[in-house]
């Protein structure tokens, strides 16, 4: 227990030192100095009394710093897209049938010059009813079979964290939700109700440059704001598994997750319902997954309104296999078909960016584990033949010991045209590093 208390005190001490320091470089040195004291102590090996912690409270802490510098410095307002220090404190309380998770996050973001302390997650899980979990509060929800491609997972994505080397967890920000999961013999089902619609964290101009109709690639100032409907969204999943084959069916009612409607008062989100299905199973010595979804644009069901996104059909085929010891290869083929395309073309406005009718995307991810799995090398390529753009996401992640993690990587974006999804991001190509200390 004493070690824990010392850790808490040190964590707050470190946090104070860091946030009081004028420069991040100085802060880094301080973290290092403090941590030497921590890991040099009794924690080298767990004592016998640590076998089973009888306390219902568990605590952990992570402090991280990351920086991403631009590879070319022509359009963006700053020369970096990531420069921040984060401190996450997580406390869980658990007894039979009840679990409470609280995660506080303190961050100092040099890019937007903001320091903030907030509740990242706070949720309660009640499991007192047989085969049923009720989870209420701010929580992360993920389902579906895609690898960084999303069809039926219509919970908020942190796209602003997709391109700059932040920890992957920020790709799935928590949302305020009531989630009820019921597990049965033949099939299970769950429903997630969000009292207030939570859109994706899309590009605003705060951090990245991108394509602006009529202007070209630029970093808009002030950043673009959107109107978020003060209305609920609900997602349902029915799922099961038989003989190693996992299946699921999905339904959703809410809104497109990205700005998809130009209303009288500005950019906002169009109403959308969706249905979909997925299968995941072992095949050909690896894992095969298939997923499809149909997005119905409720406010523009015939596709004739150019100011509202059309309905869509999405299809995904994925395969992952181990190609050598400790090396896996995962590939995906993805199709996004815009429906009522003729109506969209006829009614399109001047300067309007029209997506390809069939947007295609291939991804290949190569992952290698080495040095007792302490070094993880990951290389993922997104390539779109229809948009003629690509995104190379490479990283080397080294776990020095049970506390320290060092990550370095590259986000390289390129495209033939300025207005495509990845091509518009090309001025944001960057290299990055991240250091995390957890205890």
């Amino acid at each position, binding site marked *: 227990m004493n070690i824990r208390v010392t850790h808490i005190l040190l964590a707050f001490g470190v946090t104070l030192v860091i946030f009081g320091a004028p420069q991040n470089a100085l802060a880094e040195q301080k973290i290092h100095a403090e941590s030497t004291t921590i890991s040099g102590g009794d924690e080298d090996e*767990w004592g016998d009394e640590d076998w089973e912690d009888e306390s219902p409270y568990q605590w*952990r802490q992570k402090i991280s710093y990351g920086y991403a510098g631009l590879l070319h410095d022509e359009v963006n307002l700053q020369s970096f897209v990531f420069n921040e220090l984060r401190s996450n404190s997580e406390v869980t309380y658990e007894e*039979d049938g009840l679990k409470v998770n609280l995660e506080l996050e303190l961050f100092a973001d040099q890019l937007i010059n903001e320091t903030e302390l907030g509740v990242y997650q706070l949720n309660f899980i009640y499991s007192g009813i047989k085969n049923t979990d009720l989870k209420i509060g701010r929580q992360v929800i*993920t389902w579906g079979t895609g690898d960084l491609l999303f069809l039926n997972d219509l919970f908020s994505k942190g796209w602003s964290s997709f391109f700059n080397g932040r920890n992957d967890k920020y790709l799935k920000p928590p949302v305020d939700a009531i989630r009820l999961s019921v597990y049965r013999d033949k099939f299970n089902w769950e429903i997630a109700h969000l009292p207030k619609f939570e859109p994706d964290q899309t590009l605003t101009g705060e951090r990245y440059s991108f394509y602006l109709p009529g202007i070209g690639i630029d970093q808009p100032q002030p950043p673009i704001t959107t109107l978020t409907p003060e209305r609920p969204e609900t997602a349902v999943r029915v799922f099961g598994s038989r003989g190693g084959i996992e299946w699921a069916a999905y339904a959703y009612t809410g809104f497109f997750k990205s700005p998809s409607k130009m209303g009288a008062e500005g950019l906002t989100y169009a109403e959308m319902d969706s249905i979909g299905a997925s299968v995941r199973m072992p095949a050909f010595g690896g*894992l095969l997954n298939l997923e499809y979804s149909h997005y119905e644009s409720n406010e523009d069901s015939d596709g004739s309104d150019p100011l509202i996104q059309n309905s869509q059909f999405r299809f995904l085929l994925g395969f992952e296999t181990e190609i050598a010891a400790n090396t*896996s290869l995962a590939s995906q083929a993805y199709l996004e078909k815009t429906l009522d395309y003729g109506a969209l073309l006829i009614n399109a406005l001047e300067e309007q960016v029209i997506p390809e009718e069939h947007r295609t995307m291939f991804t290949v991810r190569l992952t290698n584990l080495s040095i007792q799995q302490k070094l993880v090398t990951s290389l993922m390529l997104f390539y779109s033949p229809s948009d003629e753009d690509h995104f190379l996401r490479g990283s080397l992640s080294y776990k020095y010991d049970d506390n320290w993690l060092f990550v370095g990587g590259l986000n390289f974006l390129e495209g033939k045209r300025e207005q495509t999804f990845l091509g518009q991001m090309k001025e944001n190509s960057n290299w990055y590093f991240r250091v995390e200390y957890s205890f």
Partner: protein
Amino acid sequence: MRNIKTIIFVIAFINLAPLQSTLAGQTPDANEIVNKASLAAYYGGDDGRTLARMKIVDANGRKQLRQFTILRKDMEDGGEQKFLLVFSRPADVKGTVFMVHKKPQSDDDRWLFLPALDLVKRISAGDKRTSFVGAHYFYEDVSGRVPTEDNHIFVSEDDEFYVLKHIPKDKTKVEFDYYKTWIDKNNYLPMVIEYYSASGKAIRKIEALDVSEIQGIATVNKAKVSNLNDGSYTLMEFRKMKYDLGIPEDIFNERSLRNPPRIWLKGK
């Protein structure tokens, strides 16, 4: 003539008798020992729970630690099994859950739950002889190598141990040429397993360092896996083992990945 025939028959019988006794009595059946050893090492009770921790020490003496709780349920002795591993340390893997549906006749189904992303990731079957969470233990050491993967040869025995040699049927799937086991005659637990290269050099060793009886079942409390080439090793310890808790089969599902069943991890 009749006498000669009788004499030949008698001589033949006399001559064969010692040979028969060697085959039947003195040379035990290697396959039978291996099957018994597999049951003793991996199928104790109908189900079980244990706390486990590993100290992983690399060739430079640098240490990593892992702590987790294992729940196991046997569908049938020597057959299908289901495992749930819930990590509690170190801090950055706390809450990570690993689930295996072991199927001796085909590839195992494996899943990993990553709490920060709320992600249930299915892991492709892959190479069973790769490291389990960075330790010197392989996936196959954790859930058990299927006896039919090897040809088993009886080598010798003394008062304490049967010594067997095992030659893999498919050498392309493994990193060794053959291995030998020293199996305790009393409880059939493999006390030492040594892996050899094609040149006959010992390259890897698994030892049971401490065994005690729990609920009448001989149970390993402490084991060590060593890489004999570079001196690195993993020390594994087990505590609070309990058998026959009555763990139901249906807890080895997605629910337990996302919300591990505290009642079976801590209670009863």
